[in-house]
């Protein structure tokens, strides 16, 4: 009986080690992006009308079939930004907008037409739009993930930030790979 328990324990340990060691690069990247997504919230100042009241949570809408939403749900559990709780909302394929979201993540697997519509519907509203694709930063995206020398970095478009009535803190701008200045 003791031997059986020991074998089960050894199997569980080996399986967990194997899964950690054999984690794919996209899975690790999704975990990092999920961590970045909720950390962005600490460096953004939303206008007052972005929240129902002082206790309203910060809602992160995720439009992606990847593992970002899952990683994000685990990461934000029990976390707060100031007094506000963090919540994740998974968007369905039919969702073309994210009402009540303060952050909207549009993943690389979202069809270009839907991605463009999601960004267009968030335009001019107090939503931090975050995109992730191999292409150039799409129009309406405030923050865009890029892979630079095997590291996850991000670009910031200040014009989109202004249009959505947001203010990004200077430390976030300082660590961005590239900050696209406002057009005069």
């Amino acid at each position, binding site marked *: 009986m003791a031997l059986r328990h020991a074998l089960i324990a050894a199997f569980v340990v080996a399986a967990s080690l194997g899964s950690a060691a054999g984690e794919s690069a996209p899975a690790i990247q999704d975990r990092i992006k999920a961590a*970045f997504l909720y*950390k962005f919230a600490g*460096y953004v100042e939303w206008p007052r009308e972005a929240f129902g009241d002082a206790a309203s949570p910060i809602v992160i809408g995720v439009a992606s079939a990847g593992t970002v939403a899952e990683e994000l749900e685990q990461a934000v559990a029990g976390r707060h930004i100031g007094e506000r709780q963090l919540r994740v909302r998974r968007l369905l394929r039919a969702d073309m907008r994210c009402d009540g979201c303060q952050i909207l993540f549009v993943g690389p697997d979202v069809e270009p037409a839907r991605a463009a519509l999601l960004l267009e519907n968030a335009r001019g509203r107090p939503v931090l739009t975050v995109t992730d694709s191999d292409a150039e930063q799409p129009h309406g995206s405030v923050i865009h993930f890029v892979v630079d020398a095997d590291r996850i970095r991000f670009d910031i478009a200040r014009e989109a930030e202004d249009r959505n009535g947001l203010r990004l803190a200077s430390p976030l701008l300082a*660590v961005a790979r590239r900050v696209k200045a406002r057009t005069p």
Partner: protein
Amino acid sequence: MRPPFLRIRSVRQKLFAGVLLTSFAALLVTGIALFIYDVRTYRESIARDLEVQAELIGRATSAALQFDDVKFAADNLALLSARPSIRAAALYNARGAIFAMYLPAGAERKDLPPLPGADSMVFSGAMITVFHRIVENGEIVGTVYLSAVYDLRGRALSYSAIVLAVMLASLIVALIFTYWLQAGISKPIIEIAALARRTTKSARSCSPSTTCSRRSSGARRSSRNRPASSTG
């Protein structure tokens, strides 16, 4: 046996010695008090200064730690080259691994602790080390480590030299003032003493049979009443 300055017979020299000795004693007590105060405040100020420095580094590099920007963090730490007293600095990430470091000439990576410690400040010999946790939204995102020179001996020596130089300058100024002021104080005394000496001398030169016998008895009284020490 009396000290040499008490064996001085001249009023002028006694005044000089008295003023200088009083000034020296006052300056010495003030100098010692200032020295003790400085040594105590130096320790407190260097500790506070390093704590503030660690706090500033923490705030400046918090985003770099959270968004994995090693270069930005290293660039921030490199600014410490403007402070030669800093002998090593490091940033640890939330997992306790070294994220970025600053090692000036002569310092090595082995000088850095392999793991970060809790918030602390330790004086050890001529060094002071600080661990300062960086907290964002109630979450530890990293730790700043600073190691700086705490040269109390050098500070004490330089401060002593300054105090001695100030004492010397003050004594010279006191000497000049004493010389200037004592003319007004000792001059009348010296004149009275000179008059007394002259009177005594003339009394001695008179014979008892001459008319100056009354004056001589007065002069003798004056001579008896004269103090033992010379006033000239």
